């Protein structure tokens, strides 16, 4: 590897580390790296760094905020001419959420998505979701939509606590 390529690889790693530490504005316990929102980084021809992020949902209102925070994080890390690029393909899936991210989510009181996103049967079929507080799987859906686009609202019939469930997508 040439000296330039080595320097670029190091810059890319620094950019990924700095951007990856940015917290999700709506679920601050998760970083955008945990979420799988951070996709890639590269050094561009003009010597700047470009970071790719992808939205969880088409209309996710947090994307603008995340882009600004990533740019700020890159600047704070001393990276040159940072740019953020929004990419749609491949479409985000909860499969990209890290194991660490899932554990953090559960500790925070939000049931994480199933380890592998499958297409649920359209009607009637309920997936098994464990209560993030007591661990019981005796839980039921309250609403298909919760406080943000990525969450649904459920209730535990064992400990009787309501909780958010990160939708499987």
């Amino acid at each position: 590897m040439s000296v330039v390529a080595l320097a670029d690889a190091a810059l890319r790693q620094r950019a990924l580390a700095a951007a990856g530490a940015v917290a999700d504005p709506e679920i601050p316990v998760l970083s955008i790296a945990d979420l799988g929102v951070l996709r890639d980084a590269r050094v561009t021809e003009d010597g700047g760094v470009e970071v790719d992020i992808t939205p969880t949902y088409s209309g996710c209102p947090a994307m603008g905020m995340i882009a600004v925070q990533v740019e700020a994080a890159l600047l704070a890390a001393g990276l040159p001419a940072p740019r953020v690029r929004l990419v749609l393909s491949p479409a985000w899936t909860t499969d990209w959420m890290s194991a660490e991210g899932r554990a953090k989510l559960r500790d925070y009181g939000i049931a994480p998505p199933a380890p592998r996103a499958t297409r649920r049967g359209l009607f009637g079929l309920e997936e098994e979701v464990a209560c993030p507080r007591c661990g019981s799987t005796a839980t039921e859906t309250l609403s298909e939509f919760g406080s943000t686009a990525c969450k649904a609202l459920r209730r535990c019939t064992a400990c009787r606590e309501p909780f958010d469930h990160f939708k499987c997508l």
Partner: protein
Amino acid sequence: MTSILVAQDAPPLLLHVLRLADTALVLGHRLSEWTGRAPMLEEELALANAALDYIGQARSLYDYAARLDGRGRTEDDLAYLRDTPDWRCWLIAELPNGDFAHSVLRQFLVAAALQPYWRALAASRDATLAAIAAKAEKEAAYHLRHAGEWVIRLGDGTDESHRRMTEALEDLWPYTGEMFEADAVEAALVAEGVAPDPLALRPAWEAMVARVLAEATLDLPAPCAWMQSGGRRGVHTEHLGHLLAVMQHLPRSYPGAVW
């Protein structure tokens, strides 16, 4: 006030992207009108979330349309500075919300058409459209599930909810034919492998609708000899102008205003 015109003889891809964008934005706007008015908090959140999905899809599509147009217009220009005859949404999207039964039935009928459409479009030879479609398809599948469950619950519910669902079905049915029309614009894209043929997707829609209506104890309407049409040519119901007056008020009154 200037109006941006995208001529009817503009390239088929641009027209098609605008059609998809217009339907998404108009329906997203209609859903947003439920905010503060839904029958319960959970459904208020659900409708607002679905609105957000549609508006997000519209943004991606307008952004692409602006690039295809190549005349320096932005997604906002396309959304806020065109007048009624320039809009190409399905008529079903612009109809007033009516009651909750009317709104969820529309959500169901439209999502049942869009979900297979996005799925097929995800295989488009146009990489940008394919990327937008792959994302939108997941959202449409969720909308379909949510609205479909409500159609079943209300259709197979009380006398009152059944009556309201029946009325909504009578109102909306004549607007469903337009979702499967293919004109010359569409045909050109189908031939190039850029867009799927909507007619080919109709049987999947019919099967889904028949299955859910049956479970909802609602009678499947007889095939209509005549269906409402015109949205894609810019011929709209009287409702779209009022919707645009509200939606476009701010950027029209304060040109160039930014947040």
